[in-house]
């Protein structure tokens, strides 16, 4: 017997968590919906209950919290640029947001939704009919990875363009569930397991993203894609330095989680780049080959270092 479809629209976080608690795990939170709705169309997401968070105003605020700027998870990608605090201190966040999907997607898609965007693989992001024809893979309850033949590991790609930019600036996130609120480093959200890429129960809500103010971040953002719009990333590379000389490299699109390498201006940049590429477990599961994406990681990162250290990019804040 088919369960009745439900669509719930809480107005507070409290209400949303209660609704989730009453939905027996057969639910999904919905922010902008641009990712979830496509996954539903392809029947990779089949929850009978959708809990739409877009009516919760407390998730749409930008405010200063001591040394941090707290950015509400429900702010749309298109709206981030409306906040001067963001454009002035964290311009790479705007650049990353602008690289997501298409202008139409960005008007619905949210910051929180993007960092929670489901991992992708060309053998997974297909209709149920297609996956049935090929044989279901590890990520959809099958027992083999179509891309590699592995029976254990799923290497679906982490494709958020924004998370790498945020992580490069040591972003924190506030997560709430019925047990309360906790603050973690954004990079700790990701497991590296393509099947369950985030170590956050689905009953949790990402409330806000926090970035430390006055760090004089200098960042370079690059995204590899075949077309200038619409595309998910094939490789997102961000390099950020701060006023203390810390360097952080983050790669997306080449591993089930963001690849992070940290160093200081004292380190040999070539060495840091090598480390980042070495950590990337890219496989052939999209339109660009694994080798090319790894090679481009090197090119993008080198270019980023050159731009940062030549003074071509600055932070005017």
């Amino acid at each position: 017997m088919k369960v009745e479809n439900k669509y719930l629209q809480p107005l507070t976080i409290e209400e949303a968590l209660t609704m989730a608690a009453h939905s027996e795990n057969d639910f999904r939170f919905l922010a902008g919906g641009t990712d979830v709705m496509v996954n539903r169309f392809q029947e990779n997401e089949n929850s009978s209950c959708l809990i739409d968070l877009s009516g919760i105003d407390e998730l749409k605020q930008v405010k200063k919290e001591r040394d941090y700027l707290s950015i509400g998870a429900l702010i749309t990608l298109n709206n981030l640029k409306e906040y001067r605090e963001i454009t002035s201190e964290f311009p790479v966040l705007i650049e990353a947001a602008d690289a997501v999907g298409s202008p139409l997607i960005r008007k619905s898609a949210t910051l929180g939704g993007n960092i929670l965007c489901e991992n992708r693989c060309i053998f997974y992001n297909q209709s149920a009919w297609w996956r049935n024809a090929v044989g279901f893979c590890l990520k959809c309850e099958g027992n083999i990875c179509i891309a590699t033949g592995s029976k254990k590991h799923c290497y679906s790609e982490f494709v958020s363009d924004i998370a790498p930019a945020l992580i490069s600036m040591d972003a924190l996130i506030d997560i709430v569930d019925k047990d309360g609120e906790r603050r973690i480093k954004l990079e700790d959200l990701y497991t590296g397991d393509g099947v369950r890429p985030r170590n956050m129960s689905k009953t949790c809500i990402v409330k806000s993203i926090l970035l430390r103010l006055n760090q004089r971040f200098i960042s370079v953002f690059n995204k590899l894609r075949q077309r200038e719009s619409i595309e998910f990333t094939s490789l997102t590379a961000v390099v950020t330095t701060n006023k203390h000389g810390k360097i952080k490299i983050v790669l997306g699109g080449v591993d089930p989680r963001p690849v992070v390498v940290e160093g200081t201006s004292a380190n040999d940049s070539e060495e840091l780049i090598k480390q980042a590429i070495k950590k990337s477990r890219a496989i052939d599961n999209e339109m660009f080959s694994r080798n090319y994406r790894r090679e481009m990681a090197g090119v993008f990162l080198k270019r980023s270092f050159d731009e940062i250290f030549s003074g071509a990019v600055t932070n005017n804040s």
Partner: protein
Amino acid sequence: MNVIELQVNTRNYTLLVDAHETLADVLREKIGLTGTKIGCEQGSCGACTVLLNNMPVLSCVTPVMRCRNARIITIEGVAQNGELHLLQQKFVEKGAIQCGFCTPGMVLTSLHFIQENPDATIDEIKKALSGNLCRCTGYKKIIDAVIATIHQESKTENEKATQFSASGKIGVGHPYIEATKKVQGIAEYADDIRIKNVLYCKFLRSQFPHAIIEQIDTSAARQLEGVKYVLTGHELPEKFGVLPISQDETALAIDKVRYVGEIVAAVAAETEEIAQAACRLIKVEYRPLKPFFEIDESLNDIGTHEKIHFHTKYNNNIHKKAELRFGNQEDGLQEAAYRSRMSFEFKGVSHAFTEPHAAVAYWDENGLTLTTATQVPHYLHRALAKVLKLPLSRVRVIKPYVGGGFGGKSDPFPHEIIVSWLAMKTGRPVKIRFSREEVFLSNHGRHPTKMTLEMGADQNGLLKVLDAEIAIDGGAYGSFGVVTSYYNGVLLQAPYAIKNFGFRTFRVYTNKPQSGAMRGHGAVNSRFATESLIDDLAYQMNMDPCELRLKNFMPSNTLTIGQYRITSNGSGDSLKKVMEQSQWEMRYGKLPFGHGLGVACGFFISGSALPIIRNELPQSVVHLKVDFDGRVLISSGASDIGQGSDTMLAIIVAEVLGISIDNVFVLAADTLLTPVDLGSYSSRVTFMAGNAAKTAAENLRTEIVRAVAKAKDVSADELNFSAGRVFTHDKEVDVTWLEAIDIATASRGALTVSGKYISPKLGGDFKGAGAGLSPSYSFGAVVAEVMVNTQTGEVKVQNIWGAHDCGKAINPLAVEGQLEGSWHMGMGQAMSEQLKYFNGLILNSNFLDYKIPTSIDTPAIHTNIIETDDPEGPFGAKECGEGALHPVIPAIANAIFDAVRVRVTKLPIDAEDILHHIKTESLSFVKAVMN
């Protein structure tokens, strides 16, 4: 189910909806506002864009429950009280609308954008529109429309422009006659048609590429409540195919399946959901056979394995071998001081029209009526009669507005036959609409191709020889493949005069969705190879590649080696035009490493001189009727699929009769009401239907002249038709059109006349001489400018300068649109489009991974119409819808060679490949040093 209230276009609705329905479905199915189009279902194409609380959203991924109490504006709500919004007016005037399927989304996205950005630049507009895909226009005229709106051109100027073109003069740009309908979302496409008591059809498709069907159990599906009919292959055993020589397809698979996606069973049910559920209840037992996916596998002897089709001649999967030779290729090579030989590989590409296939069939006292998104109502008419075993007189095919075709709707399709049969068996109308995935599964796109080409030139740069060895991957069935096989070779016999010319093509069957005809049919890939080799020869002999081409063009009014009759020939003019505009001589070969210019030329038929089905019928007949009201009704079977053929017919008739186009009405593409036209394929419509319309209009004029001359007692040859009047030279007699019609219809009533077009007898007396014969041929040239990133191998096209000899532009606005669309589509094949397979399954059957260039990816396009006045074309016109595609792809590749000395031999162009070559080829080093 939930009750929600929402406001759409200022009207309030209270609706019962499923909790998970999308806004797009509710707008279309519950409210009936079908102007909102569904092109991809996944938020990738933008056709479904509507304004939600004044913000553009993709309604196909917007849950309707989110729109509770919201204000929604759909395309139907943009015009106010029957008056178009300025933006809509500009879309109409600037020719921004072709098939019209992306238009609603484009208009709404642009509308919001210009409200927010009243001073936007071109780059900002391009960016803003980059989530809305258009397959027809190359975006140029859409951007023009947005800019014009922003500039708010003064109203008086507007009115002047509109009045000028309203008369419908030959050579004056005129918006499509249906453009105002399309820009308001009123035009009905196949899936927009609402018929009461309709059943919905869904298919069970094969998940095996090659397998024997051992058993099909449909019992559970039949028992499902709401299911009205379950159909399997044996009920429709008659074979069909667009060509009489390859009737190799059945409506549903019988006993075996030949590709993943082939229809195995069909269900008609009360709702789409029930039909879908029933399909899932059908149990099929398959016995898998060895599948054949690659050309090479299918060319070879297959041993003890089972062939894809039993009817092929030998123990392989070769469908067709085509070979023609003229002169002597060996001698030619001997004479050649310079030779070039290269092998190429081309991935398959698909038409990717924005409107998915859809059809609705019903049966009544007149027999079968099928309304369907087709380019070929006539061939479909015949196929339906054949497969359903109906008299021809009991079949009616209606083409509604069609959201693009490009060859992808030019075969009779299984789904069209199936819904017709189901309507007959159930006594109810039956409707089908494809998902985007199903569109890709049906394919019929450009053949994946491998070829080796050899050319040679003498010391003076005269081309001496061309020899081509070609293999094309036809997929599971024949489609147009026999024609494609020939076109790959024969269409290389011009625009260059090459005496020693020969080719051999093999078309093979493989276990993939079938390939067929796609814009530029047959010769796109081999043209790429030819133009690449010419570029290489020029490089070898250190000659400017434009100069080499100019030396070798054949003249006007000549015969090619294969006895094509060339009449007007604008090759030289086209090439000189793009050379001049691109500052070729100043810039070619002189740009820094990574930056390059490339050139190529093209050649295409202007309508196939031979009908597909050999018979004595004219290729096109047009009827005109004029009654007491003075309005001329054009009846034509020609199929406007967005290319503007209805408007072309109207302009021609208005011109001949000297009346305003407002007095002309077009009734087209209904096989009950309109005389036969063979269809929109082979770039034949302007030439053939246009000529038929011209003849018909001349015949009507003769009738009117006769009546007026008699009534006014003047000589017939003194009467002129112009500006809505009929008059003698001395104005002694000077009557209005309506007065002339009063005279002509007195005591007789409505006048009806007919005009026809039949190709002249053409061609040589040898087997294969008919392939590529056309009453006229088009020519063209493109210069492309690229930037190659030498660190990543990424290529960006910066400029496309194109020129195309269309004989005479009857409607320059439409001609430009066709050229720009062709260049854009060619650029897609060059840069990003391909069908990728995994075990016979298409890996990228969606608009995210099948990569049509967006507005940002599309460079500045510089459009030039070259006019050469064809002696037989209507008012001198010939084709412009396909041939322009040919030169753009090799021009881009040759520009890459100029930029980084890398020769592209695979399409699409792959950054990884380019980078690899930049790194390894010493030539690049030489140029780098020189720079």
